[in-house]
């Protein structure tokens, strides 16, 4: 089965006070759900923005992305990349929330829609993965 990777970004649509808790809850649920359908990836939530990469079989990626695009907890979803992938970049993480505000707020990729943005996003997500567990 062909492996695909999808990268998008969006603006959070959550009340500021409870945003952190809601995202944590969302990620916990996502992790459990993703394990079942063979999805791995990472989610960054900072400054009212989401950056997410998901990877897995095309069908699962499509189905999940459709769910995510039906979710009112964020808006202005911009697809940065959908492409076949040689290997999983987030193989060890069903869905990992990465990045502390101060670590990434100045490094968010600015322009959108280009492969460069997607690459920058992936690099950022990867760099923020928990160090100890990062596979060699």
């Amino acid at each position: 089965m062909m492996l695909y990777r999808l990268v998008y970004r969006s603006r959070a649509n959550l009340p500021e006070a409870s945003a952190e808790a809601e995202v944590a809850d969302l990620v916990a649920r996502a992790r459990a759900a993703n394990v079942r359908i063979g999805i791995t990836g990472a989610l960054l939530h900072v400054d009212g923005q989401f950056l997410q990469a998901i990877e897995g079989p095309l069908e699962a990626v499509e189905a999940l992305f459709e769910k995510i695009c039906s979710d009112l907890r964020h808006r202005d979803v911009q697809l940065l990349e959908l492409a076949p992938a040689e290997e999983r970049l987030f193989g060890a993480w069903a869905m990992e929330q990465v990045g502390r505000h101060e670590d990434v707020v100045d490094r968010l990729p600015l322009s959108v829609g280009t492969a460069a943005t997607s690459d920058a996003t992936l690099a950022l997500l990867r760099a923020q993965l928990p160090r100890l567990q990062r596979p060699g």
Partner: protein
Amino acid sequence: MAVTAGVQGAFDTLATCLTEAHDLRIVALAAVICTIGMHSAYAIGGVVARSPRGRDQLLWGAAGTLATASAIWATHFIAMLAYRPGVPVAFALDATVGSFFLAVALVGLGSLIAIGRPGPGGRTLGGIVSGLAISAMHYTGMAGYDVPGTLHWKPSWVTASVISGVFFTVASGHAAWSRHRLVRRSAGTLLMLGVCAAHFLGMAAVTVTPDPFRQIRPGALSSETLLVLVTNAALLVLALALVAVFVSVRFERRRRAEERRLRDFADVAVEGLLICDGDRIVGLNRSLEQMLGRSRDSVLGRSLAEILPGIAAAADVPVGRERDATVTDADGTSIPVRIVAQDIALGDSAHRVVAIRDQRERLSAEAEIRRLAHLDPLTGLPNRRSFGEALAARLGPGARLVGRVALVMLDLDRFKPINDTLGHAMGDALLRRVAGRLSAALREGDLLARLGGDEFAVLASVADAAEAEALADRLIEIARRPYVIDGHVLEIGASAGIALAPADGRTPDALAQSADIALYAAKEAGRGTWRLFETEMTMRRQQRRDLELDLRRAVARRELQVHYQPQVDAATGAFTGAEALVRWHHAERGTVPPSVFVPLAEEIGLIGEIGTFVLRRACEDAAQWPGTLTVAVNLSPLQLKEPGLVETVLAILGETGLAPSRLELEITETALLHDDGSTIATLAALRARGIQISMDDFGTGYSSLSHLSRFPFDKIKIDRSFIQLAPHHANSASIVRAITTLGRRLGMAVTAEGVETEAQRAFMLGEGASQLQGYLISRPVPADAVAELFRAHSRVETG
């Protein structure tokens, strides 16, 4: 005490009479004959009852009567032969034979009464007559009993004999018609008892006193002769009985087979069938067993009302006319059914058959059809029809308006190209996704429907306009998010129009119209957004409609005009040709600028017709111009996409006689956007015929070098906006310079449009423009004016 003693005495007398006065072996023979005879009487009676009325029945009736009478007669005389009064006996012929015929007559009469008058009365009367036949036969026979002695009769015994004969016969008759099988079976035995009782009580009533002076009369039958007679009678009885039994068995077998056939027949019926005898259920078929989930045995014998609640009696089920009812199955569930009854004769009584048709499948099919009629099969959303019904329910007469009702009409943007290029299957999949997305953006109670194509609508209760706007916002935003389908990334948008009831419309139609107008306004505002209905929109819409109507009329009446703006050689100032410009002068509107009516014409599909009209007129006019002066005609991107453009152009050139080299077709960059190669091919075909092709309005829009490199344009026209800013505006000046340089490099002539001042002319000349056009040279002028201008000029030149 006295009574008991009397009865006891009577029994003793009877016992003594039987045991001491009779030869018991012969008594037994009599009893056998009597039993066979009486049972065969009923066997034949059964055949009679089942036989169709007429000759058969009459014959069987006669046979039955004969058998019964002879059995009674034979029983009597065999018993008489068993009687040993201790003296020789003989039987007078007349009385012996007469008693037989008397028996035949009375039994026949009794049977006729019983059959002729159905019911207990007839049976009783028939029984009495037949019962009397026994006694009458007996005492007539006894009258011929000849002994050398005197017979003494005890009247009480005689009475008892007659009464018991009648009693048992009547009882037997009633038993024969009983409902109960066992009782019916006993009829023959009862009759036999009657015969025996009458006989032996009658014999106990008599005592013989020998009288030596009495002689047996001559001519009387001896015991031996009688025996032959009686034996023959008995044989007749036996033969008849055998025939009767045989026929009866065959009848029975046929009845059973018929019953089985009926049942098999009923069992293959799809409908449930119930057979009722009165209100009691006496039969049902397998379909009904299955429908009820009950076994045959658990239903048989129940009352009809237990199975068909609400139907009190079988008589309530209309014959030949269906009615609705419910049946209760084993779980107590009510099943809707339709029932109809039919009376049939089963055996000897009328039964009512109730046919029961299960309606569940039909009802659920109807419900499904109703559901389908209200659902859009593609998305599963309510369709236009049910949305209309919901809207009517909310706004219709009698509906109470609580708060406000918002109607949001939603159209997808850029859906058609996806459907066209990626196929309908992809379009359908996309619509399903959109339906899912929009559903996710609804609040509790909002109704989403697909009205058709890429049109959706939402009906929502809102407190105020802001709430409706927020809803529209969510709908548009969620629809615009990217879609990934089968590895394709699809991007579409959505526009929405909002109308609020009651302000923007009190009726469904009015509200829908307002929402439509608002949607139109949203599209005009660039799509991807929503508009709340405003009253002015209606006016603007109306104005546009009017304009559209006027334009159609003008085109149809050829009221559009073509004006020409001359072009000169930048270096020499000599006329090189003119650009044809379409003009619309309306009697009331005045001059309508092309910037207003050309986009409208493009939208309503009139641009092709207008374009062809202009082209023809320009060619006609230019053909009158002197020398090699050219005419430039604009082609809209839509025209370029029309098949057959090349043929049209060539045909017009042929008709007007204009040399192809004198026609210049101007296109804009927009025409090359999203070109799959067919536009370039069209241009190439035109250019191959010697027609010049130029790039119009260059510098605005995309200004893509790739467009210039894709096709060898003859000419580039620099947009007037740069010329007007140049030469003082540095940026514009450098753009102009870049374009002229580019033109030179690519070998394309460069025309400056909108030259209005001497300074601009000088600048353009300096930058190497080859051609000038603008107010400095001339405004656009009518055809005869430009023709006059050109002629005058050529006269000056040549003259």
